[in-house]
Structures are given as structure tokens and as C-alpha cells.
């Protein structure tokens, strides 16, 4: 019958109209600024740098300026300059740190590859999305002070992932300490103070005379180790 399809369609729209008053499945509007969206844990927007503490973010950055993320970033939105000196990190071990670390969020495509390639769990994805600005460079180019966020914040936004990372880092720390202890014992037992080459290669962090209780992030070798990037030529 001509017109049957139209009437059927009208019934559907009527069902949705009435349903939107009592059926949550048909009333889906989220009142955004008043009601903040429930972001899933996996949600990612822009990267941030993890620091161990909130009091001294610059002193406790996990980043050691290895520049792997800078090299792998597909749109090249990360800029790092290594420090000339070394500073003690959260555990007191002297480390190179990023003198400059900038991310241009106006270029970043939120692909998360920097997080995947980072062997130090130093860069993670933030969930902040309300960052519209009126100034291109002033508002969207983030330097390391703006990028640094404490580990506690990381736990807050990605609880499961952060717990895994903490566990892994602690295990690596324990393993490194164990190796350092064994190396020290072997050194004490041997008549000549010669570190076996194999041990040195296996645990570069532990091979150096490190103070007790030091972490050795360098020992957490990535699955796919790459040679350290060549020293950067002086930038213009």
C-alpha cells in the first residue's frame, strides 16, 4: 500500500520522541560543561612528562633526554636538548636531564608512539582536552615546566597502567641493586678489581660505581635497543 512506509517511519520517529523522555538509551545528550565526560582510562590526548614528586618536578623528571621519542615522533613535534651537566635524579643517581623539552601541541597527532618507544616510562599521555587557546605559540607550545606532571597524577588518570609501570620499575630497581650487590661482592672477592666484561655489558647501570640504593634506569634495556643518538650538532 502506498504510504505504509511513511507511516512506519513516522511511528519510529514518534517512538524516539516519546522514548527520549523516559528511556536513557534514547536520550543520549551529555551536558558537557556542566557534566564532565567520563573518559575511559585508555583515553589519550597529549603527552606529558612524568616526575616522581610534585614538589620538585624539574629535579625528579624520569626523562634522561635520550631523544628516542624526538626521533620517532611521526610529525616531529618534540624538541629536546640534552643538559651539559648531570643532576641527581629522584634516587640520587647522576643523570643527564633535558635542558629543553618542548612539545608543540598544535602539531601533535596524539598517536602515542613516543610513549611506546620510551624505555624509561618518562613520557605518558595526558587526558586534558579543554586547552583551547587564543595564542598559537604562547598557548600551544608547551615547555618542560608545563609538561611535567607528578606520578600521582599519572596514577589518577591511568590507574591500571601506572600501577603496572610502578611495579615494573620497582622490579628493575631491585634487579639492578641485586646485580650491583653481586658485582660488589665479586669485586671484593677477586684479588684484582676487574669487572667482568659480561657483567658490565649486562648491567651498565650497575657496572659503574653507583651509590647504594641507586636506580639504574639504563639497565631496563628496551626490547629493541638502538644505538644512542649521535650528539646533536649545535642548533641555530
Amino acid at each position, binding site marked *: *500500500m*502506498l*504510504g*505504509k*512506509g*511513511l507511516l*512506519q*517511519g513516522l*511511528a*519510529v*520517529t514518534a*517512538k*524516539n520522541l516519546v522514548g527520549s523522555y523516559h528511556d536513557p538509551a534514547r536520550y*543520549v545528550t551529555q551536558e558537557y560543561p556542566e557534566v564532565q565526560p567520563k573518559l*575511559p*582510562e*585508555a*583515553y*589519550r590526548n597529549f603527552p606529558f612528562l612524568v616526575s616522581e614528586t610534585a614538589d620538585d618536578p624539574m629535579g625528579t623528571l624520569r626523562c634522561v633526554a635520550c631523544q628516542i621519542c624526538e626521533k*620517532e615522533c*611521526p610529525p616531529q613535534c618534540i624538541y629536546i636538548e640534552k643538559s651539559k651537566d648531570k643532576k641527581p635524579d629522584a634516587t640520587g643517581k647522576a643523570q643527564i636531564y633535558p635542558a629543553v623539552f618542548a612539545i608543540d601541541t598544535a602539531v601533535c*597527532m*596524539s*598517536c*602515542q*608512539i613516543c610513549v*611506546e*618507544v620510551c624505555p624509561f616510562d618518562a613520557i605518558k*599521555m595526558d587526558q586534558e582536552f579543554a586547552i583551547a587557546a587564543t595564542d598559537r605559540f604562547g598557548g600551544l607550545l608547551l615547555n618542560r615546566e608545563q609538561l611535567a606532571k607528578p606520578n600521582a597524577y599519572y596514577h589518577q588518570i591511568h590507574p591500571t597502567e601506572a600501577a603496572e609501570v610502578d611495579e615494573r620499575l620497582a622490579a628493575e630497581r631491585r634487579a639492578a641493586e641485586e646485580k650491583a650487590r653481586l658485582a660488589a661482592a665479586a669485586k671484593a672477592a677477586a684479588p684484582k678489581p676487574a669487572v667482568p666484561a659480561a657483567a658490565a655489558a649486562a648491567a651498565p647501570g650497575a657496572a659503574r660505581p653507583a651509590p647504594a640504593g641507586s636506580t639504574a634506569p639504563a639497565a631496563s634495556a628496551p*626490547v*629493541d635497543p*638502538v644505538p644512542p643518538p649521535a650528539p646533536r650538532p649545535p642548533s641555530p
Partner: protein
Amino acid sequence: MMLPDPAATGLARVRKIEGAALGLRTPAFAPEEGAGDLLEVSLGPHHPSTHGVFRMDVVLDGERIVRLKPVFGYLHRNHEKLGEGTSYLGSMPYTDRLDYLNSMTNNWAYALAVEKLAGIPVTERAEYVRVILAELSRLLNHTCLAGFLMQDCGCSGTPLMYAFREREKILDLFESLSGSRMMCNFQRFGGCRVDPSAEWLAATRTLVDGYGAFLDEFEALLSGNEIVMARTQGVGRLPAALAVNAGVTGPMLRASGVGHDLRKVDGYGVYPRFNFRVPIGRDGDVYDRYMVRMLEMRESISILDQALRGLPGGPILDPKAKQRGLRPKAGEAYGRIEGPKGEIGFFLVSDGTGNPTRYRVRAPSFVNLTILEDLCLGHSVADAVIILGSIDIVLGEVDR
């Protein structure tokens, strides 16, 4: 021309209520010579119904189209050149932005090409997860397409609104798995980046179980609607022989009655393990293209159901599979899958370094546009708009 027998197993014809049988007049214009003055009109690149920045240079005789030349390149963002300067892993997030409605299938096609090029095996669980995500993506694409097509027909708002309501549900799944609504960057060489959790699978199960009801409602709204039938039946007929010769793939080709589906033909991934039919059309008009997509969604639901039930355990990604710093042996590979819009393929040439020397995207909607002029000749401008809508283009992959 030889075509597989439609009666062979695995093909399902669209069911079609003939508008003419209901007394509807279906448009059947024929080009006439020299009836009046010719008028040249440029449709686009800013036009609400060109699905992005696409332009058609149309020559009109009255309301009838006598010539139509598509103009491309308004979204040509040098994807292929960038791919030649980026590592194999670094190109993965760029593929998200090709057909930006279906990042999951783009990722898969690219991962498949790299896996062929470098000979990387894929884990069993990942193959199932890929099927699940590709079929969810197909649901998403076809639902949105139906909404956009109806928008082009003049059903302003309502079908698109319902389609986007369902799209959000699928996007929520993508987001909770991959971290992003649209740009999933999910596949890796040899598997997937994240292992779906039990909660995620349960949520997917809920969506899949409820999707059939939504489709019933959506079809009640549209498929039998007399205005839709009068508007779409008999418009833009594509003969099967031309479709094959012009490289048309996907639902466009199947609507013309050719049962060509790479999930069956190539049997890539674990698709041969699933039992599903390939819907084909009869007339190859806009209505058939719409209807084939509706039926494909039903089959997708069936595949999803089977894949969710058969999902094996095990690793999602071989930890030995190299992602960063991948350097395949010098050689080349062409990998293709059945994307929601048709055959999406990647042709990669490696010279043994970390970047491909040639990175080519075979974009289905670009090749499908070859026959746009043939379909539109003799029709009115309003028909050209729905013919373009039924081709289902996304400018991100047309222009790359």
C-alpha cells in the same frame, strides 16, 4: 563477461520493494541532444553535499547533466610523500587519517602490507580482534553512510541523528580500547597494540546483541519509505561489466550484482572460518547500494557474534615482532583488504632501509569515483548529489 553464479553459496540478493509496483514514478531521464542552452555550474569544493572538499564541474542542459568532471586535490595532503620519509611504524598513525571514518580497517590494510613485505606472522588472537574491529568499523561506516545519504536525499537530520547516536556507541568502544575515538592507531605488525579486556569484550557483546534491533528500526524508518524509493530507485544504474572494468569495489560493485568480496576471494585473516553471506544487488542503482550496505551490516553482526564466541586466548602481539626500526629486505608487496568502502590496498617498496622508497595507497573511494560521470549523465543535479552520496567517498583517501 563472466561472473560468478549468484546462486552459488554465500550470496544474498537484496530484497526490494519495487517503487513502480506501488505506483511511484521512478526517474528515467535520457540525454537529449541540443535541447537548450548549456549552463556550466561548479559544485563545490565548498558545497554542503559533496562530503568534504570535492568539486564537480557540471554542464547542464536545463536540469539535465550533459557533462560532469570531478575535480580532486582539495585535500591532497601528500600522504604518500610523507610515508616515504617516515619509518614503517611512523606511518601507522597517518593511515588513520586516510579514510577517517574507518581507521581500524586502514590500520589493518597497512599492517597486512607490511606483514607481507617483511614476512611477519600474526598471532591467532590478534587475527580475531582484527576481525572484530573491522566489522565494528563496517557497522559504523555503513550506518553513517546511510545517514549521510538520507541527508543528501533531503531527509534532513533525523536519520543522520540516529546514525550518529549509534556511531557514538561504537566510538566509545574504540576509545576505551585504543584511547582515541577516531584515530585509533591500533594495529601493529604481527598483532594489535592492546589486548582487549573481558569488560571490553562484554561491552562489545552488548552492542552487537542490540545492533540488530537498531537496524530493524532504522530500516523501518527508511527502507520501505516511499519517498526514499522514489528518490533512489532507478537512479545512477551501474552495469556490472562497467563496474568491474572501472575497478569499482566494495558495496558499489556488489550492488551491481557482482559477488566480489575480498573476505571471501582472498580469505585474508581468519575470515574463512566464519560463516557469512555476501549481499548483492540487482539493478546497481542508488537504492541497491543502500540496501546492500544494510544487508552487509546484518552479516557483520553475524561475523561479530562468531568472532566474539571463537576468540582464542594467547598473546595479542608477538613480542619478538619488530615494530620500531623495522628494515624489511629489499622487495615489494601489495596487501589489500575489504574495507567498508571497497578494496583498500597498500603497495610498499622497500630498499632495505627503515623507510619505504614507495608507499602507495590504493584508495577505494578514489577509484570508485571513476564512474561518477557515467552514473550522472542524463540525471538532474539533485540526483547527482545522491549518486555521489551512494558512492560513499571520504576525501581523506580520495585525495590522500
